[in-house]
């Protein structure tokens, strides 16, 4: 696996080009470029669930994709990847594509397409063991339809379907742990990443692609429209998600946990919350208990993660 050298990578021909209609400041385009650059050693076929990335990059008669790309529907990108990979294997077996042709399949989907409507197709594809990398672009709500809550939306976040009102403090349920759900399938490589920590992200893409089997990368993706922050600070919000341990960077490789980035001095969760208008109601004095609840949730998850890492060393 090559050492990531951003300067040399930028000299490579772009596989995902500009001119797309992603919002200014959106993290998704940045992430896709990082993923495809990290995969530069391979021939790649990209698959995309319905969502922001799909609608903004394939507006007929234009496309941003300089690799073969398929969008079918919202809930089935993992099934589509299964079919493409099955065809690839079969056509090789029938001698209709050369044995030495190597293709990597990379599926992109948002949190709606992954945690919610696409969970069944994802689980099926993971269990069947198709060889593909699934990249989750986690912006923590249904942003494409206009900021509706998903099971990835954090507790107390405002969305248009978990609005803040006199009797409701935003979303009342905690965020689902998709990484553990995926890892429970026993797949060889599962990791989290953030576009703010691009070397970490790209190293993980390369690691994932070195496996012949299903792999999963959950990438934090700031949506300035939905998180209610300025476009200029979108990467900063992503970085702060990592620095507060809200979105710890780690990997689960063949069942073993490893934290790949440890904040020198973890920031209080408030530092991340206050950047985003979706949490503005939590900044009121009467909601300090809710901030504390989120901080406790982050702390307990971080502690558990460290214990899992420690335990992994004994394996």
């Amino acid at each position: 696996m090559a050492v990531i050298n951003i300067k040399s990578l930028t000299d490579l021909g772009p596989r995902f080009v500009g001119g797309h209609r992603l919002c200014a400041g959106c993290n998704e385009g940045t992430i896709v470029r990082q993923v495809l650059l990290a995969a530069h050693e391979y021939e790649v076929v990209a698959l995309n669930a319905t969502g922001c990335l799909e609608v903004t990059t394939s507006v007929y008669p234009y496309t941003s994709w300089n690799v073969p790309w398929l969008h079918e529907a919202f809930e089935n990108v993992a099934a589509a990847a299964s079919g493409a990979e099955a065809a690839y294997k079969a056509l090789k077996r029938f001698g209709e594509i050369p044995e030495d042709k190597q293709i990597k399949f990379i599926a992109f989907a948002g949190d709606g397409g992954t945690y919610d409507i696409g969970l069944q197709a994802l689980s099926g594809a993971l269990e069947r063991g198709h060889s593909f990398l699934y990249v989750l672009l986690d912006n923590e709500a249904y942003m494409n339809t206009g900021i509706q809550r998903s099971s990835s939306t954090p507790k107390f976040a405002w969305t248009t379907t978990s609005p803040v009102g006199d009797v409701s403090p935003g979303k009342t349920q905690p965020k689902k742990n998709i990484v553990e759900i995926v890892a429970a399938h026993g797949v060889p490589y599962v990791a989290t990443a953030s576009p703010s920590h691009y070397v970490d992200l790209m190293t993980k893409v390369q690691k994932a692609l070195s496996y012949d089997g299903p792999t999963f990368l959950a990438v934090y993706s700031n949506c300035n429209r939905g998180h209610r922050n300025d476009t200029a600070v979108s990467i900063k919000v992503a970085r702060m998600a990592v620095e507060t341990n809200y979105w710890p960077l780690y990997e689960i490789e063949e069942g073993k946990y490893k934290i790949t980035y440890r904040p020198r001095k973890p920031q209080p969760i408030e530092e991340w919350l206050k950047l985003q208008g979706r949490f503005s109601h939590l900044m009121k004095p009467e909601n300090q208990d809710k901030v504390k609840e989120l901080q406790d949730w982050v702390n307990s998850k971080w502690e558990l993660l460290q214990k899992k890492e420690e335990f992994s060393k004994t394996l």
Partner: protein
Amino acid sequence: MKVALETNQLIALAMKQIEPHVVAAYPITPSTEVVQEFSQYVANGDVKTEFVPVESEHSAMSACLAASLSGARVMTATASQGLAFMWEMLHIAAASRAPIVTIVANRALSAPINIHGDHADAMGARDTGWLQLWAETAQEAYDNTIQAIKIAEDPRVRFPMLVNYDGFTTSHAVETVEILEDEQVRSFLGAAPKPKYSLLDTENPASFGVLALQDYYMEFRRAQAEAYKNVKDVVLEVAEDYAKLTGRKYGILEEYRLDDADVVLVAMNSAAGTAKETVDYLRKQGKKVGVLKIRLFRPFPVEEIRCALGNAKSVVVMDRAYTYGGPSGPLFEEIATALVNETNKPLLGNVIAGLGGRDITMEDIEHVFDLGFKALEKGNFEPLVSWVGVRE
């Protein structure tokens, strides 16, 4: 070569002979055995097919679509709720011009849940853009399966196709049928024609499944609608080639004793066989009756139907499905549309029969012809739609 097999096993055998690159499927009664038997061929190494035992029918069609767009020859099998669950993907597969062949052992839709023969499943797919062949017998189901591959993959067509036969009545019946040798099937079909663009062609990257809004969507759909005009010629060409190989001749429709028939029954799948028997019986009594059997339901053969019903005085269309809240059964609506502007059109009536596997007997068919004769006496069908063989 003659074999006596259950139709589902026979279709699995046809799939073995076809040896598709990819089969992605999910079990559902009454089509389960097709997939089950085929997976045994895979396990035995009789075929090189990549079998993807997906976790749902929705994923089955999703995987089939991606495989088909990758240039693979692709098949699946389903029925009833399974086809309904695929509904979203059926539209996308047709509009993506992916020549997937799907075997359907036609079965009723819930509720109440029912596993038996009924056409509600395929009728629910009639606006999805899939081509549809229908079969009266096991022999026809086998022959249609092989021909469907060649029709769907033809570069003038490139649409997916449903191969229908009745659940249980046909799917679980054992009939003696004439089959081809594996080698004959493979040489008849040849290699799957390469699509112009393939998802696996990394040298020439293409984007599939793009967004088209007010400025282009309608042109995409207009072009799709136009492409169905090529299908009938290909169906007939393939039938002709198949007849050379097997001696068995197929058309768009089957006309049974229609030449001088006053009252004609229009039917699809297994009930057409019962109807033909009844026609023979009634003909002996001097009644001028006949049967029109639809083989190609999609694209709907408007001209052929006009021509076939040109001499009839009274036509009863038998639907094994109903358009709830609508004016009639679905087949009737289409036949009526085909004839709407004809000057000398026959009287038209509709019967609903055989839902949820309710037997359609010769007595039922005789009753249906009676309705046709009564309409001739009265000058019209009253009521337009009659339910047959049901406790009212």
